[in-house]
């Protein structure tokens, strides 16, 4: 038993770490550190830096710009990005639509869409959830009717992350509503967001942030060549997409960075007794329990990787466990950060744009609010438990 990376893996980690340090622009680094909202250009700038280096889509085939990193290298890369605090790579193009086109697309579709995804020229979003279908995806109702050489789409999508800055959306639509099995009659369509009839309405979250949207489709004409795979076989595509997860489900690198940051600023906060808050055993114990949970999750994740590497099998329900624990840890860290500043968690926004207003401290409570989403999105933690219950435990 050896919990450490091999010499090669350590060297790879050092290479990635050094390269990120050299190539992550300072202004982006600061935005992340201050929890500023990242815009389209911020996200795509980092994407393009990685694309140029050839590190943006490691899991893609080499012909399309992938490299031959194994699962451990991919994990190391993604966790190093999280640990350094780079902008996230938005998954909709790179790890969702891209792999789907690679697997099911025609040669024409590959040629048309993949370079834009790889190079970060085209920003994608995901059209899965609907007002009436959250965790129960197969209940979706958005309709696409074939009329000659195009489909006419009517309906509504919701929780469309970054839909307001996206160029294209991949959608699950119902092309046949006469079938009794709900998973049948669903198709996978690519839609240009500039098509007439599409309306994007922001859904402002409780922290004031604009991340998600509602997208309305009103007689939207979509060329038939934008259909991926066969009509009515969208569920097969959707399942493939969901199985195509990234390696950093646990977000261990990012949580390590947040933990280190929290320790640093908890040392600067003063407890009721005038001593640094970090020395207050009640606070300290809560912090340590999160730290220990994170240590355990990192080892658990490495154990899964070790297994995957040797068996060559894709990750199973293990990913669900990483999601559950990883998000619980992220939430605990944002909560402790908010608690660390005590009464100073209350100020939210300066009325007159006071230059002295402490934006960082004022951002901690909204961040706590925002992170409640993590146990809900990408398959709520209850859905993850259902998956483990069925796949691993056989219940």
């Amino acid at each position, binding site marked *: 038993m050896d919990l450490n990376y091999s010499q090669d893996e350590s060297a790879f980690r050092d290479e990635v770490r050094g390269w990120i340090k050299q190539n992550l622009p300072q202004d982006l680094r600061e935005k992340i550190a201050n929890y500023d909202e990242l815009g389209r250009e911020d996200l795509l700038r980092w994407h393009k830096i990685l694309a140029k280096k050839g590190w943006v889509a490691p899991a893609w085939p080499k012909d399309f710009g992938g490299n031959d990193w194994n699962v451990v290298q991919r994990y190391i890369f993604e966790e190093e990005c999280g640990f350094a605090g780079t902008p996230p790579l938005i998954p909709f193009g790179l790890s969702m639509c891209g792999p789907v086109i690679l697997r099911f697309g025609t040669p024409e579709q590959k040629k048309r869409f993949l370079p834009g995804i790889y190079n970060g020229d085209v920003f994608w979003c995901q059209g899965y959830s609907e007002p009436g279908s959250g965790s129960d995806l197969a209940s979706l109702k958005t309709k696409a009717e074939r009329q000659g050489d195009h489909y006419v789409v009517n309906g509504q999508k919701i929780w469309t992350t970054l839909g307001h800055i996206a160029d294209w959306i991949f959608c699950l639509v119902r092309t046949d509503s006469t079938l009794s099995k709900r998973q049948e009659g669903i198709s996978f369509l690519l839609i240009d967001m500039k098509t007439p009839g599409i309306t994007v309405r922001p859904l402002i979250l409780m922290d004031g942030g604009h991340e998600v949207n509602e997208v309305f489709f009103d007689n939207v004409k979509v060329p038939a060549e934008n259909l991926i795979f066969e009509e009515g076989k969208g569920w097969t595509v959707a399942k493939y997409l969901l199985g195509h997860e990234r390696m950093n489900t646990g977000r261990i690198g990012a949580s390590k960075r947040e933990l280190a940051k929290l320790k640093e600023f908890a040392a600067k906060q003063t407890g009721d007794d005038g001593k640094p808050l970090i020395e207050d055993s009640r606070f300290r114990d809560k912090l340590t329990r999160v730290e220990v949970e994170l240590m355990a999750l990192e080892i658990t994740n490495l154990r899964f990787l070790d297994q995957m590497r040797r068996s060559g099998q894709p990750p199973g329900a293990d990913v669900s466990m990483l999601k559950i624990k990883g998000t619980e840890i992220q939430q605990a860290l944002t909560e402790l950060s908010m608690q660390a500043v005590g009464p100073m968690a209350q100020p939210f926004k300066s009325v007159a744009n006071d230059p002295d207003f402490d934006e960082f401290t004022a951002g901690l409570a909204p961040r706590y609010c925002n992170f409640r989403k993590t146990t809900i999105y990408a398959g709520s933690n209850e859905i993850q438990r259902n998956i483990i*219950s069925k796949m691993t435990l056989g*219940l």
Partner: protein
Amino acid sequence: MNFDYNEEQQLLADSVRRFLAKDYGFEARKKIVASKDGWSPAVWAQLAEMGLMGLPFSPDHGGFGGGAVDLMGVMEAAGDAMLVEPYLATVGLGAQFVARAGSDAQKKAILPAVVEGKLKMAFAHTEKGSRYNLSKVAAQAKKAGSGWEISGEKFVVLGAPSADTFVVSANTDKGLSLFLVKKESAKVKAYVTLDEQRAGDVSFSKAPGEMLGAEGGALPVIEEVMDFATALICAEAVGAMKFACDTTLEYLKTRKQFGVTIGTFQALQHRMVDMFVSYEQAKSMACLAASKFDSATDAKDRARSISAAKIKIADNCRHISQEAIQLHGGMGMTDEMKVSHTFKRLTMIAQQFGDAEHHLARFAKLS
């Protein structure tokens, strides 16, 4: 990076498991627990025969030179079967002091006998009011001729009733020191622990003792051995947790209520999943504890990892054991179900060698 046991470790773990499954089933164990001494000389001889006594000791003394990781699989199997033999007291505690601090003569006199299963040991350290503070010792040792005389009272000495030789902590003018004391000079008040092991309060009154290790230099050795033993019970806990999870899952799949198996209820499914997740997290920390014990280059690094592991193990011992009983319903409360015994062992492991709060404080101090 490699989380598997090597071939030797796996073979040994498998053979221990096979032996315990055959000769140490729940009913067989019950008889041993109910016997006068509460342990089985036949099982002890068998464990020695399999080489388990010598596993972590030097080949110079007939052992195999293994470390904490080499013992993990064995301890997991022991946790599954809830071994009540004084294995931890002898191999994990008592003889460890001899191996780590003893003179050549002491090692030669004691370790081969331990390896052969002929000598059992116990570590007499905890005192009334010392709680988990390893440095708080009132027992005294006075020079007497060429040896020492030890006086003091020790509590909850694991394996005391069966021990042939005690390792006793006591203060001299130079500070905390360790002594070897023969059972003839110890007065043992024996009892059965909640988890059906044998322990006792031990008093020494001018008991002749032989110094073990440097006078006044015992604390670092005590910390090291306690960390070793803690790594072992972390692995033992993982074995017991695995049993608790497996048997509860089995129960959910067979027990029927309202015409269906109770495992079809989502309220129970999610709790079962959380038990499973707890087990995996605990297992990761047991791996950390054992491998860090073997590989850490400084005491602080070692202690920090062991404490981190024990925090998680203690928390998850409680979580898994409590949920296992709840999901079994009334049956889980009964003495006839093995799971209620596993509950008791997990409950005690959570508090053995430092509870979560003790290790939280220790971890904070070391950070």
